[in-house]
């Protein structure tokens, strides 16, 4: 535990257990109302989120924006049905109304009053934050944007436009349920991104870099925004000389840090227990089977300190954990939320997450990464006759039922005779998850985490991290236009 002695925000800035949003008695009363007409389970999720964002575009600080969102989501489970209601009114009356609405939605069964008693606060401590963003003068945040703009523009005369964004958020949550759980967390995230446009004879090209961590403003002690800006600029400039991407099946080498999206799409979503339970995943019923090359070990780890997808407790109050999903090529386990774990009669895995108090939790990834291997990254490229090297991946998408997935390449090069040659234009790659996992034929030891991501599922976005070393997939379809 530590305090940085800078308590002007009025929020305890120690790593102590965050249970202070609502009084335990009020939470217990609300849960009793939620359970009054029967049900197996009730939960109150309280959230208080403050955020700041600042945008520089076209050489101007366009705006500084402050946001506040606070409320509670209440769910009641009766049989197979979950009833859910939320409210921004955290008074006793507001919570009671929401509890009654959730209870009615869950089709009230039995009757009588169920008293709920909450245990003492429990659970892991929130991450220790060095410098709370709320304590940093706004002028310092804005100054970072101006530095990034100047650095990107001076990187090359062909940079014709720059936008930069700073964002921080403080999310305090509290979870209480009818089984007596009372716990909480405070999650601080800080983010910075730079996007550049380069203009040349070949038209416009873009380059982007972003960094985000579950830390405070001390992020900028170790991240140099000038450097970030120069890299974004360099990416756009490089692409001015790009050739059309090839078309068809070929080996694809993915650079360190860049490949996390590949695993997120190729199998991550397919290992989420809610999709598995509905047989909407190609990985359903395959636990214990060899699903990947024996050198593949895939981990989802919500405890990775400071990473974009980390937290002390998930949004159902369960401590984050490190879960091995694939070990030496064998599918060891899926990811679980409370509802699915309960149906299987097992423990959850700390993967129950939600976008906000307005949403029901579901199974979500945290920080998903492929463990490093033994191959040499340069030899992987040298051993590839003809293919594509992807230095930075864009987003992706998967159909978990078929396993077909795509991901974008935002910086990529041709590999010709074992050497990186021309940069190529943007495009998607397409593959099939189970086939791609078995087609990974090289993994290097140069592990790195990738850029911060927002994972979307069923209309809810949550922050996720990912990471990989350099790896090669022997065959994927590159969706370019060159014959």
């Amino acid at each position: 535990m530590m305090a940085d002695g800078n308590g002007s925000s009025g929020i305890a800035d120690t790593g102590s257990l965050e249970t202070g949003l609502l009084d335990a008695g009020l939470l217990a009363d609300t849960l009793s109302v939620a359970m009054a007409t029967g049900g197996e389970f009730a939960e109150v999720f309280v959230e208080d989120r403050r955020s700041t964002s600042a945008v520089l575009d076209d050489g101007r600080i366009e705006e500084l924006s402050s946001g506040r969102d606070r409320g509670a989501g209440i769910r009641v489970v009766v049989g197979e049905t979950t009833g859910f209601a939320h409210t921004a009114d955290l008074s006793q009356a507001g919570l009671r109304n929401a509890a009654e609405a959730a209870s009615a939605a869950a089709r009230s069964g039995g009757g009588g009053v169920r008293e709920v008693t909450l245990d003492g606060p429990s659970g892991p401590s929130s991450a220790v934050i060095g410098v709370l963003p709320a304590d940093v003068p706004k002028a310092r945040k804005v100054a970072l944007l101006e530095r990034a703009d100047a650095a990107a523009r001076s990187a090359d005369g062909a940079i014709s436009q720059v936008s930069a964004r700073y964002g921080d958020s403080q999310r305090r949550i509290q979870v209480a349920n009818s089984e007596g759980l009372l716990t909480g967390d405070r999650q601080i995230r800080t983010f910075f991104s730079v996007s550049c446009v380069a203009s040349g004879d070949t038209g416009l090209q873009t380059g982007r870099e972003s960094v985000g961590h579950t830390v405070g403003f001390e992020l900028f002690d170790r991240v140099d925004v000038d450097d970030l800006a120069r890299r974004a600029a360099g990416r756009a400039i490089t692409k001015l000389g790009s050739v059309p991407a090839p078309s068809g099946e070929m080996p694809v080498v993915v650079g360190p840090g860049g490949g996390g999206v590949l695993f997120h799409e190729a199998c991550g979503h397919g290992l989420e227990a809610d999709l598995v339970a509905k047989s909407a995943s190609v990985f359903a019923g395959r636990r214990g089977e060899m699903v990947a090359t024996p050198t593949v070990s895939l981990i989802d780890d919500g405890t990775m300190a400071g990473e974009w997808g980390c937290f002390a407790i998930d949004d159902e109050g369960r401590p984050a954990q490190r879960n091995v999903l694939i070990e030496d090529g064998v599918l060891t386990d899926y990811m679980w939320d409370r509802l699915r774990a309960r149906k299987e009669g097992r423990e959850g895995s700390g993967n129950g997450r939600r976008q906000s108090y307005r949403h029901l939790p579901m199974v979500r990834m945290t920080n998903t990464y492929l463990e490093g291997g033994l191959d040499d990254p340069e030899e992987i490229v040298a051993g590839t006759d003809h293919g594509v090297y992807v230095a930075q991946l864009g987003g992706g998408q998967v159909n978990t039922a078929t396993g077909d997935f795509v991901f974008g390449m935002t910086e990529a090069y041709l590999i010709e005779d074992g050497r990186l040659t021309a940069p190529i234009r943007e495009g998607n790659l397409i593959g099939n998850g189970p086939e791609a996992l078995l087609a990974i034929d090289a993994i290097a030891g140069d592990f790195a985490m990738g850029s911060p991501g927002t994972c979307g599922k069923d209309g809810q976005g949550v922050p996720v991290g990912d990471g990989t070393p350099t790896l090669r997939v022997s065959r994927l379809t590159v969706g370019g236009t060159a014959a």
Partner: protein
Amino acid sequence: MTGTRDDEAGLLAIAERVVAMAAPGEAIEAVVVHERETEVRAYEGEIESLTSAESRGIGVRVVRDGRQGFAYAGTLDADALIEVLGEARDNVEFATPDEHCAVAEPDGVPVADLDLYRSALVAHPTEAKVAMALELERLTRSADPRISGVESAEYGDSTSASAVATTTGIRATSRETGCFLSAYALAEQDGETQTGFGFSLGREPGDLDVATAAAQAAERSTRMLGSVKPASGRIAVVLDPWVSAQFLGIVAGTLNGESVQKGRSLFADRLGDEVASPLLTLVDDPTDPAATSATATDGEGLATRRNVLVSGGRLERFVHNSETARRAGTTSTGSAVRGYSSTPGVGVRAVSIRGGDRTPAELVAGIDDGVLVQGVSGLHSGVNPVSGDFSTGAEGLRIRGGELAEPIREFTIASTIQKMLTDLVAIGDDVQWLPMRAAGVTLVFGELTVSGV
């Protein structure tokens, strides 16, 4: 129970109260919204979840000396209003002065009467919504013996009201209702699984068609059974309405004043040029009540209007909000888009293309060798609206000798936005509004690159 503060008059009163607190030399714009939503999900004959939600929010923009500050809160409590105004004011001093930065001025354009609100939806009992979700799940499951499961069957609705007030005299309100059914089916045959969705949209539950949504989900999932990966090559590509609406949304998204002024539009210097096949006439008209995204007022409270973007292949217009219009020396096209948690951006809302005179079947009959694309994935990751690079995952059917042939999947189609617009060779007669910012219609492109085996 809905309190009076949640109707348009109540919301406008709140916005006016904030605006009335303006200090001398300060312009204020307040946006206030209220929304109720119901969502019912059925699974295997039971209700999986029922959500009843109510949200309120306010966004306040303060402009002083050409600088703006913004703040928002997800509540309309009196103390929050004061806090939001205070934060927005505090944020002003960090912005760079800009002579074009200001809240909108009334422009005298009359607001269309679109009648987007149905009291029938508000009065519809929850039990009836539950029954509809259960019926959708049952019908989807029983639509075809190859349907192995229904991943989700959902009824959803929303009622929303909003108000905008400014110190410059804008007073705008709107309210609307909407509802939908959606089903996501799993089809299985010989150990292979395929998926497909079906939906139905309306302003009130009576507009919804359960049977059509179920049949569509079943048809979309079963038609992909037995699909193969096609060979790579350059061939004719037909986009079905669901796919073309997404493509047109991307195209129209490049035609906004902000992207143009900031050098991020590939059409920036092309006003008045022939940028597309002469077949293409593209219109953005949020005042068309048939559009899912119809709205009578924009994010700054100005009247929305019909804007012709491309006429006979010629680029006619970019859309603007009041700020980009001032910078361009023109007037707003009523195209400010935003939620309460952001400042006004610029964008199209309801884009449609002028339909041709041939049916989709007639268009397919004219193609000797091609593919019909019925689904795309990764538009967000493989399309760059600044450079124009276009590459997307796809699935659909082969076309051989003018006939639809085997189902195909795990391939991409690629080109550039610029080239696709000129490669457009035919447009179907099947223009239809879909749940997105553009209407769909069958489009035929002479040649795109298909990447498969």
